[in-house]
């Protein structure tokens, strides 16, 4: 079977507008979360990770008129544009497919009755059409809205579609913006942390939300690969724990099945995994469930982190930007510490990364879980590893 190469990527978040800017901040242990009392976003002080609007508009104005695109579309177009600049792919050609992930899309338009856009622009397909039109793509894009696992599902779907050889390249792009809609909902669940979130810590008390966009370009075209030992996608799976629409299973069964199915697809029969990029939302239930699934998969020795304390939970972007960070962990042979973690707070003795470390990283497993009982995993490795 054809190999699926990761050939380019980008992250736009509170920590920067390129993968490198973001990864440098992660290595330095720098978080993009800060406190806001902006009445447009929240009725009470809120910890949040936001993209710099001034830079967004000034960078975007070099490409197109900022007023013709929504906030999320601008972020997606800039992200894809940066990733494409690293490759020779022509996105208008028929061998390249766009796969999008977003939980809420242009939800900020629902709160602004006087927005200047067409009334259909609130729909997810209208948003992806707008982005695809910018890149002159004539292929109908694929759009996934799978709650907090959306980004991983999009990567898995993109890879799945490359296997039947209809397309040579897939541009996977996912993201979400912060408006009042999402924070108020999570606050009503009493699921939002007062301080920047503390994944897997004994004193964790909920999530911190963030906004951002991530892009990964996958390709089966070996000629586009610039490195000797590129990172390839090995396998992925999405499962459901069939337990509750807004709470994870207590046993971790759904996430365990996602991990098992992913490693099966990857042909990985041993447990020699160098790194797990966890979901780690820092809610009491999620992190506990995750520790059980990791233990069940006999991966409790593997170094694991959550990056939610750097970017916040970026919903439709999360799976993608966390995979981009995983790819860069392989390329730079380093492990990022779980910011905010000091006292172990989950029942299984999983191996949470406490300090930044330079060590050989040849592969990683990414996991995610979300509302609707959804769980997902994806597995990547260097071409010369398994």
């Amino acid at each position, binding site marked *: 079977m054809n190999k699926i190469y990761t050939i380019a990527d980008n992250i736009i978040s509170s920590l920067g507008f390129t993968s490198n800017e973001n990864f440098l901040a992660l290595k330095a242990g720098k978080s993009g979360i800060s406190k806001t009392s902006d009445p447009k976003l929240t009725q009470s002080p809120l910890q949040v990770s936001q993209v710099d609007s001034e830079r967004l508009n000034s960078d975007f104005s070099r490409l197109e008129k900022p007023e013709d695109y929504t906030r999320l579309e601008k972020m997606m177009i800039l992200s894809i544009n940066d990733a494409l600049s690293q490759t020779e792919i022509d996105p208008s050609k028929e061998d390249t497919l766009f796969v999008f992930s977003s939980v809420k899309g242009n939800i900020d338009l629902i709160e602004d009755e006087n927005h200047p856009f067409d009334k259909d622009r609130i729909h*997810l397909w209208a948003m992806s059409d707008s982005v695809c039109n910018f890149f002159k793509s004539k292929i109908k894009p694929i759009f996934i809205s799978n709650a907090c696992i959306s980004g991983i599902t999009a990567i898995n779907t993109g890879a799945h579609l490359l296997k039947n050889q209809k397309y040579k390249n897939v541009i996977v792009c996912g993201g979400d913006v912060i408006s009042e809609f999402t924070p108020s909902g999570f606050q009503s669940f009493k699921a939002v942390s007062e301080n920047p979130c503390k994944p897997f810590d004994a004193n964790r008390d909920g999530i911190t939300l963030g906004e951002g966009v991530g892009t990964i370009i996958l390709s089966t075209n070996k000629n586009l690969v610039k490195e000797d030992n590129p990172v390839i996608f090995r396998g992925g799976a999405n499962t459901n724990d*069939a*337990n509750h629409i*807004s709470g994870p299973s207590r046993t971790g069964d759904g996430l365990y099945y996602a991990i098992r199915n992913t490693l099966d697809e990857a042909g990985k029969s041993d447990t020699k995994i160098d790194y797990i990029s966890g979901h780690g939302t820092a809610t009491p239930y999620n992190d506990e469930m995750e520790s059980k699934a990791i233990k069940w998969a006999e991966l409790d020795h593997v170094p694991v982190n959550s990056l939610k304390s750097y970017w916040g939970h970026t919903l439709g972007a999360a799976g993608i930007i966390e995979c981009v960070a995983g790819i860069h962990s392989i390329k730079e042979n380093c492990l990022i510490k779980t910011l905010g973690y000091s006292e172990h707070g989950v029942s299984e003795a999983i191996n949470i990364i406490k300090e930044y470390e330079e060590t050989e990283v040849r592969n990683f497993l990414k996991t995610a879980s979300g509302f609707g009982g959804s769980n997902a995993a994806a597995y990547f490795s260097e071409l010369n590893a398994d």
Partner: protein
Amino acid sequence: MENVISKYCIVKPHEVIVDGKVDFSDSENPEYGAFMKAIYKHYEVKYPKYFKMDNLCKVAFLATEIVLQGNDQIKELDPGKVGVILQNSHSSIDTDSKYNDTIKDKANYFPSPAVFVYTLPNVMIGEICIRNKFQGENTCFIAKEFDAEFISDYVNGLLDSGKIDACVTGWADYIDGEYCAMLFLVEKSKENIKDNISFKPEFINQLIK
């Protein structure tokens, strides 16, 4: 081996069509809520959680109930090998608007977790999985219109790869009183069953015409 449609169901205003025939209709109850209630009663669905669901979940859920009735072989399968792959156009926008109404007026601010949880389109898949204990592949795709070519490509790919053995798949959409669900139970073909329809776009598009 081919993947075939074991049963399909279309729920649209006033009518439930099962395997190509009108199975239930109620022109006296044209309004969405009343028609869903009539379907719930007619098909003897007994599931109290149904009444908590939002409108999108209700129509997706009822169409699935009808598709699975008489197909007990699905219960014999490994729950991890039964997938639910749906597509829709308007995401959860109908409930999004209702939720937004609860935060619009700062003097009357009452965001509700019970409404907020339904502001995700894939929650309809979660409801179907919880009811039936399905734990396989599950994804909610969004497209302006039902894309039989993509859905059949994707679902056949999952079945052919062995990731799943059966799938509840199709379309479910709700916005502002307008609704439609077109759900298919797709399985790997068994030799002893005749007259099964292959899960291919040319056949799917004929069935939903």
